[in-house]
């Protein structure tokens, strides 16, 4: 943690960056995001198990984009999000400094995003253990049981779109749900509209989700919607060999193909 604070201070003092995004102690013993411009305030920075939020979501916010160069405290999911955003032209590599956090919580020094790529290449990627356990359980159920599970869960959704706001990849200027010519998604929060919305969200994140789980955490009704995109992330890897957020190049699952992609259902 000292290293992190020291490094952040150095970066701000030397004007290498204009803003540091990190975590600080919030109320009720929780960690929350903090935006630091003053090098003297870097002492606020913390990193521990409570720091779960994917800070990359702020990188695309209007208020943040105005700062030139930004340093971001980046556990694995944030690193991956940064790479996704770079590959999708939403972030310029020269405008970001990654203050990497290793699996053991230590500060990792990344002189460039290439080194981040190398680091990620060495780490086994996948969904967080507890989530994958639930996904496996769901996959073990019958089709009917799964349908009931999701119907019961999704029924409760009242379309607050907190999931969308929490996701670093949901940065569109106009979401498809706001499209009414044609009306792709039924507007009210009824079972059909909910199902359509979550299908849309899941498909749009296929090959782009970095399994941070923030959508699920953001849901005020605790609907485990993060499982949908996480399952798709695994599928994209198994079907196409692609993991989101491993490279700065645009090679996302659905914008590329291999002539010999293997499926077993096309007649």
């Amino acid at each position, binding site marked *: 943690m000292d290293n992190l604070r020291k490094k952040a201070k150095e970066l701000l003092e030397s004007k290498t960056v204009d803003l540091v995004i990190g975590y600080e102690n919030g109320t009720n013993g929780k960690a929350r995001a903090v935006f630091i411009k003053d090098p003297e305030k870097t002492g606020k920075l913390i990193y521990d198990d409570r720091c779960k939020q994917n800070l990359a979501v702020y990188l695309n916010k209007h208020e943040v984009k105005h700062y030139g160069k930004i340093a971001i405290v980046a556990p694995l999911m944030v690193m991956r999000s940064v790479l996704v955003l770079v590959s999708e032209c939403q972030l310029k590599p020269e405008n970001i400094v990654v203050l990497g956090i290793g699996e053991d919580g230590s500060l990792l020094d990344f002189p460039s995003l290439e080194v981040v790529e190398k680091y990620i290449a060495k780490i086994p990627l996948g969904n967080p253990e507890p989530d994958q356990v639930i996904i496996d359980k769901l996959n073990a159920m019958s089709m009917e049981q799964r349908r009931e599970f999701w119907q019961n869960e999704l029924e409760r959704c009242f379309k607050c779109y907190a999931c969308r706001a929490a996701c670093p990849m949901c940065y569109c200027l106009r979401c498809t749900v706001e499209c009414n010519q044609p009306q792709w998604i039924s507007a009210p929060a*009824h079972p*059909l509209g909910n199902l359509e919305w979550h299908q849309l969200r899941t498909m749009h994140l296929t090959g782009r989700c970095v399994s941070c789980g923030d959508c699920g955490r953001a849901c005020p009704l605790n609907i485990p919607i993060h499982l949908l995109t996480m399952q798709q992330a695994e599928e994209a890897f198994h079907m196409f060999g692609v993991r989101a957020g491993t490279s700065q190049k645009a090679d996302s699952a659905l914008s590329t193909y291999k002539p010999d992609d293997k499926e077993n259902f096309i007649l």
Partner: protein
Amino acid sequence: MEQFEPKLVAFVCNWCTYAGADLTGTSRIKYATNVRIIRFPCTGRIDFMLISKAFANGADGVIVSGCHPNDCHYTSGNFHARRRWMSFNAMLTFMGIDPERIIFSWVSAAEGAKWADIVNQSVEKIRKIGPFTEYQKLVQSGIEEENFNG
């Protein structure tokens, strides 16, 4: 009881399957009447949301068909489409919606007979599975709620 007549729509590409279905016609090969064909320039144009929309509006099954791999009129549209379908299928499976109601196939402009087979098999399959009541129930409850809301 009267036999259940499923409603199917077919999303096909202009260059292979649509032409293949034309050939079925010129060859006078008969098939079931339960399918309505919708023409797209390429399978790459088919938005997965349209498949969902078809189910929401009463389709019991959807056929999606285009050029065989490497035969795409636009070189790679069908390859991109294939990835989307693979992902869409995986998602539906995980959500408990059996993707067996969506029949994917490659039918070339020369495969008139294959088209008839695909249609007949699909209709029989959906007839066996029965009407897509789960989905239609969602629509019903949607309508009720909408009415209730105003």
